[in-house]
Each structure stands twice: as C-alpha cells, then as structure tokens.
C-alpha cells in the first residue's frame, strides 16, 4: 500500500522507553513533567502506530491509562490534609522514579553492549581438548553448607510443595444425541430454563460442550428458542409450543450420527 506520507517511527522497548524518550526530547525536568503535554505526545505516538496498522502492546495502553489518570488527578482541586508536605502526594513522583530507574538500566545496557562488542573474536581453545570423563573430586563436596541449611532446605521444599494434582477422571464419551434427549425431557416438564442453569448442571467440559451443541441443534430444529432481554442479561431458553409435535424419531437419529461423542 502506497502511503502519501511517511512517518519515521522509532522503536521503543516499552512504555517507559517511549516516555523517557519524550521527556528527553523536550528537555523536561523529570521531577516536574508537564503531564498534559506529555500525555498528548504519548497518545499521538500510539495513534501513529495504529495508523500504520501496528498492533500496540497492552503495556503501552496501561501506561496511557496511567497518564490520563495522573492528568485527571492534577486537575482536581487538591484536598490536602494540613500536615501533608508540599509535594507529598504529587501523583507524578512514582512515574518519575520509575522513569529514572529505567533510564539507569537503559544506560547500563548501552555500556554493556559496548563492552561486549567484538568479544567473540577472543577464542578460547576448543572445548574438544578440554580434559573430560574424569570423575570430579571436591575439596568440600557440601560446598560449605552446614547441617542447619539442610533442615531449612527441606522446610523450603515442603513449603513450596503443591498439593498433589487430582487424577483427572477419564472423560466418558458424551453424546450430543443423549443430551438432545435429556433436554427434550427437561423441556417437556418445564417450558423455560435459564441458560446458566443448564450449563451449571454439567459435570465436565465435554458435557458442557455437548449440551451447548444439543441446544443449538434443538434451536435449529425449531424446538427451542433462546431469548435475551437485555445486553449481557441472562439468556433464557424456551420451548416453542407449536414445535413439539414436529419432532419425529427420524430426525433424532440424524443427531446421533453427527454427535457421536465429544
């Protein structure tokens, strides 16, 4: 796709990297970030990404929310308790601290990178010549730990022990046809049942799936209908009165074929 304009986008390692870049670019005092301005810039960058159809990682969005939140808090009239320090609850402080700490390591990473530059050119003797297949002996095979360490280590191991996992029961094959039958029996007795209730009765995931498929099948055949009064409201499953008789045995076998187990 030909783009009428071209945006040069730096790649940022994360929201802190991007924020730090913005702060530096604008030569802003990190302890006094003009939050509205920076938030605007930050969001503009995310917009630019979206325009290029680049997926924005969740962490960037979380930071966007955090910025907007800080901005909102700064706008609110301050309800300051008398004994609070001047800048005691400046909502930007945590952010500044996080930025600075990140910057420290970004810097250190750069230095490390330089330090490691070209180090691969120093080749040791090939491993194949290293003395091998010798049983090692140790001056102190315990590595200098005392017996108290042992007791602690066991306590640690036991403390972090997970309860034994229940042995999964082998799934019985659940037939959709069987569920169709039991649903029909249920709806012969009750005209209306809540979807939730139907699902909650099921004892395993395959049964849930089979029940769901059976429901769909019965809705397709016009025996049942589903209704939802409001968005996110409960779903009610209801038997259509006029459809009961139309269910013949012949159709039932068709279900058995398609739903031979999950």
């Amino acid at each position, binding site marked *: 796709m030909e783009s009428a304009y071209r945006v040069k986008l730096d790649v940022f*390692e*994360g*929201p*802190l*990297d991007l924020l730090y870049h913005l702060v*530096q670019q604008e030569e802003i*005092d*990190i*302890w006094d970030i003009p939050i509205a301005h920076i938030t605007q810039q930050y969001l503009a960058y995310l917009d630019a990404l979206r325009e290029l159809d680049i997926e924005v*990682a969740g*962490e960037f969005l979380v*930071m966007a929310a955090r910025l907007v939140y800080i901005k909102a808090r700064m706008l609110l009239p301050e309800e300051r308790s008398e004994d609070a*320090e001047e*800048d*005691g609850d*400046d909502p930007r*402080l945590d952010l*500044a*601290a*996080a930025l*600075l*700490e*990140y*910057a*420290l*390591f*970004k*810097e*250190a*990473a*750069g*230095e*490390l*990178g330089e*330090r*490691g530059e*070209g*180090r*691969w*050119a*120093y*080749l*040791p*003797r*090939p*491993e194949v*010549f*290293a*003395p091998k297949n010798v049983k090692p002996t140790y001056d102190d095979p315990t590595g200098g730990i005392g017996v108290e360490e042992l007791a602690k280590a066991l306590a*640690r191991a036991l*403390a*972090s022990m997970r309860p034994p996992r229940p042995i999964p029961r082998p799934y019985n094959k659940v037939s959709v046809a069987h569920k169709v039958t039991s649903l029909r029996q249920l709806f012969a007795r009750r005209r209306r049942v809540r979807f939730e209730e139907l699902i909650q009765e099921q004892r395993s995931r395959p049964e849930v799936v089979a029940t769901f498929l059976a429901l769909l099948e019965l809705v397709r055949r016009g025996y049942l209908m589903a209704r939802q009064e409001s968005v996110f409201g409960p779903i009610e499953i209801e038997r259509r009165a006029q459809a009961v008789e139309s269910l013949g045995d012949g159709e039932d076998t068709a279900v058995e074929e398609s739903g031979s187990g999950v």
Partner: protein
Amino acid sequence: MSKKAALEALLFASPQPVTPEQLARILSLQTAQVRNLLIRLEEEYSDADRGFMLEWVAGGVRLCSKPEFYAYVEELGRTARPGTLSQAALETLAIIAYRQPITRPQIEVIRGVRVDSAVVSLIDRGLVEEKGRADGPGRPILYGTTDEFLIRFNLNSLEDLPPLKSSDASENPPEQPSLTFGS
C-alpha cells in the same frame, strides 16, 4: 620438569578460566609463584609474533586467540560470532547483572514490559541462570549472571561492573522520602 611448562600445559588444556589458586594446588606451588609465572607468560604471549594471549577474566586466567586473527580463524569454519543481543535482552541482562539475584516480576517492574522471552534467550546463551528461589508466595525463581557473562563482557568479577549512572542531569528529586530505588 619446568613448572612454567606445566603451567602452560594446564592453561592450554582448559578452555574455561582457571584460578591461580587452582593452578597452585595442582602444581604444588605457592599462589604468588603461579601469579609471577602467569605474568611472565602474559608478557611472552604479548609479542607481536605470537597468535594467542593470556587474559584475566571471570576470576581466573585463560588463553585465547588474539582478536586480530579472528578473520582467519573464521575461515577455518569455527564461527563464534553470536547473534547480537537485542536491546530488550541487553536491558534485561543489565538489570539482572546489577540487581541479582532478582525475580522476573521484579525485572518487569523496572522495564515496564514482560521479559519472558528476553530471559529465555539470555539463559539459552548461557549468560543468565537460575539462582534458587525467592521466599514468598509462589516462590518465584531468582536469576543471576553466569561466568560466561563475565567472560563475554570481559569482567573479572561483578564488582568490575561500571557504577550505574544516569545521563540525566535532573536526577535528584525535589524532596521525597518515599523513593525506593532497587529492592
């Protein structure tokens, strides 16, 4: 039998750094004697007519080919040039190096992003390893750097890491007691 020759044989046979103490024990010498011999060898190898050198790294010494000949060695088919570390991996490595032992969630707080794949790649490269588990819920794994890390970055020990410094001038907060850098 020449102890110097024996020392050279030992260095020659060991791709990994060995400590002067180890060498002294094996050769039944004083550590100081070994150090003197090592310095003599180091000088001899530094001659332009020699193809390898002695290097003090990761708390010990090792021999390695001189970097100016790497192009030749590469033609032999021995390639050592690893893929360069990504910026993400490098930042994660820096955090682990300076703050070890450290858990993954702690690294993620500093970087502001997930670091699973960066940590995996650092472990794959042998630069980082598990160093036990932290106390507390879930007992998360603690990570630290390896000897290979020291070798790769030409450090004798972790104390040789340059001090952390920010390029940012405005480093001092106005006044806020709540700032806890690090753990």
